[in-house]
């Protein structure tokens, strides 16, 4: 099933195919859903590392053709969701394409030792990035104030302490507020006013599907393969909405393991 999806994705890398499956103009994509998709990967290196690790490929001997194909398939999915891709992804796509072609060129054996493997630079970057990816995970796990560490504090007594508070001008307050709003805007996707029923409808369908099948349902089973690519996109977005609203939860027992979906337990 997995392969099927991939083949579909790969097949549509040709322009004509992706035109056929273009997302309709009136499709409302919730801005939050886009953020979820975009944040799935932290850029091209992250995506590449994922593709390599998922297939247990040797990072020191990357099969460039295979990885490039998968990379392009993902880019294509993003494009079909009409996500504006960071330029970095496209630069990487070009780099991979170039690598692929260079790998095809025969290398003279006597020059081999002099000539650097065309993949060396990419490998170095992937390894370096991976080191910091792990470091970031470890920092996240360090005991942290207000999560694992609680500061012991007592109140000041009711007897007032003499203090001379700093002065503030109205101007400073306004600047502060402007900055808050600006920052808030940077974080928020631009609002889209058109609402389409298709995702709401699909959310209901998904919930019915989950209710009929007590317990866990495989993520892949939720997609109807007889449907168009557009249908799959709507299902995905509906699922993301449900996850965001904590109506369903998604479970994966480990990296690269199958994904299951279940009704979230109402804890309250």
């Amino acid at each position, binding site marked *: 099933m997995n392969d099927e999806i991939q083949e579909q994705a790969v097949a549509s890398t040709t322009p004509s195919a992706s035109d056929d499956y273009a997302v309709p103009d009136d499709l409302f994509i919730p801005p939050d859903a886009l953020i979820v998709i975009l944040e799935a990967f932290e850029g091209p290196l992250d995506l590449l590392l994922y593709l390599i690790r998922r297939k247990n490929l040797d990072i020191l001997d990357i099969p460039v053709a295979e990885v490039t194909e998968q990379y392009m398939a993902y880019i294509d999915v993003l494009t079909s969701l009409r996500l504006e891709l960071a330029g970095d992804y496209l630069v990487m796509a070009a780099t991979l394409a170039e690598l692929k072609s260079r790998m095809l060129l025969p290398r003279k054996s006597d020059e081999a030792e002099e000539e650097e493997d065309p993949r060396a630079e990419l490998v170095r970057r992937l390894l370096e990035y991976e080191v910091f990816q792990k470091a970031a995970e470890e920092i996240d796990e360090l005991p942290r104030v*207000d999560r694992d560490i*609680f*500061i*012991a*504090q*007592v*109140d*000041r*007594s*009711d*007897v007032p*302490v*003499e*203090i*001379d*508070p*700093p002065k*503030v001008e*109205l101007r*400073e*307050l*306004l600047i*502060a*507020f*402007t*900055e*808050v*709003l*600006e*920052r*808030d805007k940077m*974080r928020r996707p631009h609002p889209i006013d058109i609402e389409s029923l298709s995702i709401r409808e699909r959310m209901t369908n998904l919930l019915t599907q989950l209710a009929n099948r007590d317990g866990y349902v495989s993520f892949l089973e939720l997609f109807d393969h007889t449907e168009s690519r557009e249908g799959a996109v709507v299902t995905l977005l509906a699922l993301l909405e449900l996850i965001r609203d904590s109506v369903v939860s998604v479970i994966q027992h480990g990296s690269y393991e199958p994904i299951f979906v279940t009704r979230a337990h109402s804890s*309250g």
Partner: protein
Amino acid sequence: MMELNEVRRAVEALLLVAEDPLSRTQLAGLLKEHDEDESNLSALVEQSLELIKADCSERAYELVEVGSGFRLQVRPEFNKWIGKLWMQRPRQYSRALLETLALIAYRQPITRGEIEQVRGVSVSSYTIRTLIDRGWIRELGAKDLPGRPMMYGTTRSFLDYFNLKTLDDLPPLHELQSPANDIVDSVTQ
């Protein structure tokens, strides 16, 4: 089943972390385990509070009962040192504090959670406390939401300090937004 000493230390820990006073009922509720006998637990909490009260005589803080429950506060005899600590603090309010104040001024009534949502970082109780102490904001009552979060608004003395007659005298938002956009644009280019 917990022992008295265990309960005593847990009560102390809870009081040291709680932002607001905790009542007997709240304390017992927090310490309740599945099989706990409630009346026994209440008795243990009561005894713990007595123990902490007695025990604190040796310490820098004391257990005080106020309207909504118990809290630990520093003994007034140490105010001399604490005053110095306060004086040493920066002579300027932090940006976090000013932004929080600005949000409360423009968006009141607003909860701490709502402020955090806009600012994207958490708002410390210290910031809220400082603003209340300064007399610029006040609690407006709990919002009808799960957890009943407190709503905040500005005070009369906030208006006085900034020389405003009413909140309507705050510069309107749309005026603020356009110049800022220009700044952001010019920075990103």
